[in-house]
């Protein structure tokens, strides 16, 4: 277990390193960042000053190494636009995104698992088709569009929910629904497939041959096996939800990391973009690790051996 953990951590660190290298490289292929940073009204001299101040005049690998060195200590430099530490910015913006993410994954799980199970039990019958249609439509609907439509319906016509912002929990209802619905279909399919596999497996046949009641078979035997992969996928899906929150945050005006990222891209705020990409990568890596651990914990074939 320790070996495994260490190995995973090493890989995680390597992934983070490569990801940050890619994002760092992006910044430099785009041309001289100093010009972008200098902003409106800058002269060649200003740019030279900035170049020296940020150290852009040194070789890229050196800069990268330094950046990494600081990033490891939690220092991502200062946001060019806000001229304050990126870390502070992230800390300010993270709660909104995290709230949205947790609610959305909650919505996704609450939609996906029961529907997936019912669909599998009633395979090829009406509930199954309904669940699959629901999922397919969810996958086909652009979330920005769904978001606008929901705002129109619930906030403008019915006036039961706020339009935008992140002040109260009510503000998160619509975005969490949109994002959750976006994430649910893949989990639903996985859950349904897992459940179908489980239901047609030999051990379920054994359980039925033992005279267990359908309820006991489904809850005692099938679900445990069917949900195993869903749980780890949910952890990974959570990472994707965070990554995909850019669109939803911008539609609903939630001032989270996603919106910050988008705006920072628009503002050429490189240190911020870079930090956000790295943070997302770390979250993803960490979540997959968590997923593996959960999986190992839930699956005795891995846990006990």
């Amino acid at each position, binding site marked *: 277990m320790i070996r495994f953990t260490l190995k995973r951590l090493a890989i995680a660190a390597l992934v983070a390193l490569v990801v940050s290298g890619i994002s760092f490289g992006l910044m430099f292929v785009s041309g001289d960042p100093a010009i972008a940073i200098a902003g409106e009204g800058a002269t060649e001299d200003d740019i030279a000053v900035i170049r020296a101040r940020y150290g852009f005049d040194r070789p890229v690998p050196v800069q990268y190494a330094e950046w990494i060195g600081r990033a490891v200590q939690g220092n991502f430099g200062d946001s060019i636009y806000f001229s304050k530490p990126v870390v502070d910015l992230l800390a300010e913006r993270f709660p909104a995104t995290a709230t949205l993410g947790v609610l959305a994954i909650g919505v996704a799980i609450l939609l996906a698992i029961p529907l997936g199970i019912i669909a599998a039990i009633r395979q090829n019958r009406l509930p199954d088709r309904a669940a699959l249609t629901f999922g397919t439509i969810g996958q*086909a609907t652009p979330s920005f569009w769904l978001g606008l439509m929901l705002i129109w319906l619930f906030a403008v016509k019915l006036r039961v929910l706020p339009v935008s912002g992140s002040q109260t929990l009510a503000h998160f209802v619509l975005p969490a629904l949109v994002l959750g619905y976006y994430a649910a279909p893949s989990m639903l399919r996985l859950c349904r497939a897992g459940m179908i596999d489980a239901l047609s497996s030999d051990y379920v046949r054994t359980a039925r041959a033992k005279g267990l009641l359908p309820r006991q078979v489904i809850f005692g035997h099938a679900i445990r096996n069917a949900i195993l992969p869903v749980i780890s996928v949910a952890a990974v899906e959570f990472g994707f939800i965070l990554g995909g929150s850019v669109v939803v945050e911008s539609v609903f005006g939630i001032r989270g990391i996603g919106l910050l990222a988008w705006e920072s891209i628009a503002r050429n705020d490189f240190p911020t973009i870079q930090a956000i*990409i790295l943070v997302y990568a770390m979250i993803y890596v960490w979540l997959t690790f968590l997923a593996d651990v959960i999986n190992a914990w839930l699956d005795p074939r891995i846990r006990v051996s």
Partner: protein
Amino acid sequence: MSTNTSSIPAAPARLPHPSPRRILLKRAREHRGLVIGGAIVLAVVLIALFAPLIAPHDPYAQDLSKRLLPPVWSEKGSWEHIFGTDALGRDYLSRILFGARISLLIGISAAIGSGLIGTTLGLLAGYFGGRVDSVVTFIVSVRLALPVVLVSLAVVSLFGGDLWIVVTVLSLLLWDRFAVVVRSATQQLRNQEFVTAARAMGASTPRILIVELLPNLIGPLVVIGSLEVAHAILLESALSFLGLGVQPPTPSWGLMVSEGKGLVFFDARLIALPGAAIAILVLGINLIGDGLRDVLTPEGRS
């Protein structure tokens, strides 16, 4: 030959097997989702191909005096502009018809690009295993750790929203599913005896990969390919919506939603129509993908 052969009437349960293609076709025809999806996609493909013939107007022709005309179903609408016009007085129907070209072009090109990358990586990893596999797995985790929307936004904002830049970015970011699926399919195939047999015949590795393995991957590739087409179309529309997709005045559906979103509360058709176009096309492609998966899965449990 000195075998004493007893002749027994054939067991009635043994029916002669129809050819695999016939079975597939039959199953495909009976699959409702596949038929609906196929009809949708076929319609969109025809629209895209013949857009210049069926579009009533030039999708780029502006007429500021005719801006934001209502569609034909509203009281003030006319048949001249069936879906009305946009903020620059361009015919909305024509733009939507031409938009099909952009969506399909981007979706298909990105799927082909990412398919090439993903399949190559997946094949190599699955077949060679060991260190090659570790390297590819690592590349896949790096790719998965990169947030797609963010990175493509960043790249497009740096290099501009040229159509081919968008396609390249999407190709570079959407290959992971190909790689993962091809890898595990190859791992299974690699241990099949026909691969061992090919090796025992002295077949070279490229021959095994391309002649023996690849044809067996066509099923999953087609399925993922179609789902990735849908994925790319959705992503492009999201990029365009955020203002960083293909550049105007190209009639891209995502861009049209983005342009119309300011008037969502007053002139809902502006976003409802292109949004619905995206949703319907993606739905159609997904139905095909899911349908193909059902049909191509060896035991289509039904």
